[in-house]
């Protein structure tokens, strides 16, 4: 009982956030509701004892992704237009897709043996340390590759942003100066 009550509260919070993100009219409200959903998910991780995953979720999703969304809204629309919640013709297709994703996930969870508590391996005594060693020893190559890819993406984004600016001020005195 002790573990299920917080779980239920957090699950309801997460789902409510998700539903609100889809149904609210104001774009900024949707973004904030989505953030609630992210935070609820992070709390679920923490509730399960996965400290690192939970805090990383909080740091990345609430700290970075939500801010990114919010910033995009701020810079593009001003955030005051109220879009009607429209049901586009792609709706049924989306529902089918969501069901398919759910089915795949359910299948994966069911076959991995995690659904049966007896099969869960005991957590290492120092999960953070174990995680660190795993990332730095066994998975160091994937980690570095991901880092490289992200750096490449960032440089690409910077270059894209730069190129857009250049034609605007072709002969500004600053760029003409030696």
């Amino acid at each position, binding site marked *: 009982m002790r573990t299920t009550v917080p779980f239920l509260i957090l699950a309801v919070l997460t789902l409510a956030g998700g539903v609100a993100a889809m149904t609210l009219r104001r774009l900024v409200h949707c973004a904030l509701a989505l953030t609630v959903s992210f*935070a609820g998910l992070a709390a679920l991780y923490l509730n399960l004892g996965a400290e690192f995953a939970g805090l990383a979720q909080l740091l990345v999703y609430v700290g970075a992704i939500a801010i990114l969304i919010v910033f995009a809204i701020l810079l593009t629309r001003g955030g005051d237009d109220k879009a009607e919640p429209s049901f586009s013709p792609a709706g049924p297709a989306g529902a089918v897709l969501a069901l398919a994703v759910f089915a795949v996930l359910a299948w994966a969870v069911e076959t991995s043996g995690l659904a049966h508590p007896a099969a869960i391996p005991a957590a290492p005594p120092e999960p953070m340390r174990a995680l660190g060693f795993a990332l730095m020893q066994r998975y160091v190559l994937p980690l570095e590759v991901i880092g490289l890819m992200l750096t490449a993406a960032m440089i690409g984004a910077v270059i894209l942003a730069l190129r857009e600016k250049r034609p605007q001020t072709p002969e500004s005195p600053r760029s003409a100066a030696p």
Partner: protein
Amino acid sequence: MTALPAPTADQIWVWIKAWLVIHTPAPFQALVSIVCIVAAIIVVFASLFALTVLLERKGLGRIQNRYGPNRVGPCGILQPIADAVKSLTKEDIVPRSADHVVHYLAPLVLVAASFLAYAVLPIGRNMTAVNLDAGVLFFFAIGAASELAVFMAGWSSRNKYSLLGAMRAIAQMVSYEVPLILSSIAVVMIAGTLSTSAIVHEQARTTHGIAHWYAFTPWGLAGFILFMIAATAVTNRSPFDLPEGESEIIAGYFIEYSGFKFALFFLAEYLEMFAVSGLGITLFLGGWSSPVSFLAWIPSWIWFFAKLLVLICCFIWVRGTLPRLRMDQLMNFAWKFMLPMTLFVILSAGIWRFLPVTVAGSAALGAVVRWLVCALVVLLPYGTLARTLESGRKIEKREYRFAD
């Protein structure tokens, strides 16, 4: 519940809490324990807020050759109470076109996030509210919520100044969080743990009577300075107070708040400052430990708060000295100076970790070599960076593209 700890001066607060918990009925023990910790944190840091406001006003006054507040009570020491009464009794105004729910929630989220950050700060021996395995990570993750609260406040007020303030604030916080986190990574690397209590324990060790504070190493000192600069920016303190910029955008994101909600913003700002200073103390200044072993008889929590007060005074001193930066200066400083410097600090910390402690059988020589090498790794880039950034700058007449 385990046995009571010894009621020494060092452990007095831990003892009081344990005593209270033992003397409550079993079903409520967990609740009492939580309430004790939360109440203690709220009371202590809220009163520290009051003290700091007074110190700041007095200190800034003296820096500008004024008296500062000296009317309420002897020498004005009751000024915070007067301020509190004033802000509590003021009318709470909500703009008509504001987004009421978000407008209402923003200060609450901000204050809650600021208080949450104290959960992982070790304010004394055995005095960490939640001894998380990933305490440092928790601190930065919670900090993210305050950015969101700032956005909520700025957007929901429906005022262009507050929106501008929020955009500035978020841009600044995001930019300076990078050096903030990177400079703490150096400490995490050396300590080999993300737990704040473990980091403090690591620094509380002494050799020859001197503690192993990370600020006593070249990379630690540089990291500490960079950390505090980034902390100043993240908490929107002067000279990085562009988001508030009274002379440009009036008060930034909390322009439309009045009365108690305004006081909450004020409180949250100071709480963030204390929290981030507390983290700086934990990471670099040995937390609650004393710098030399013959002063170890002073209770650990006094050490922590003494260090905190010193840092607060430094914040006030810097605020009284430096003028506000311009936005482009702010961003250039973050990305062209702070970021490379923190990367070099990490490099220096790595070299420190792998250099041998003894060179040619002599520990003293080893220490000197280690010191010199690591200091050079930080100082050389500092000199080059300062020189190149300076040389690239031309003082020219500024062109105003939109004002003419």
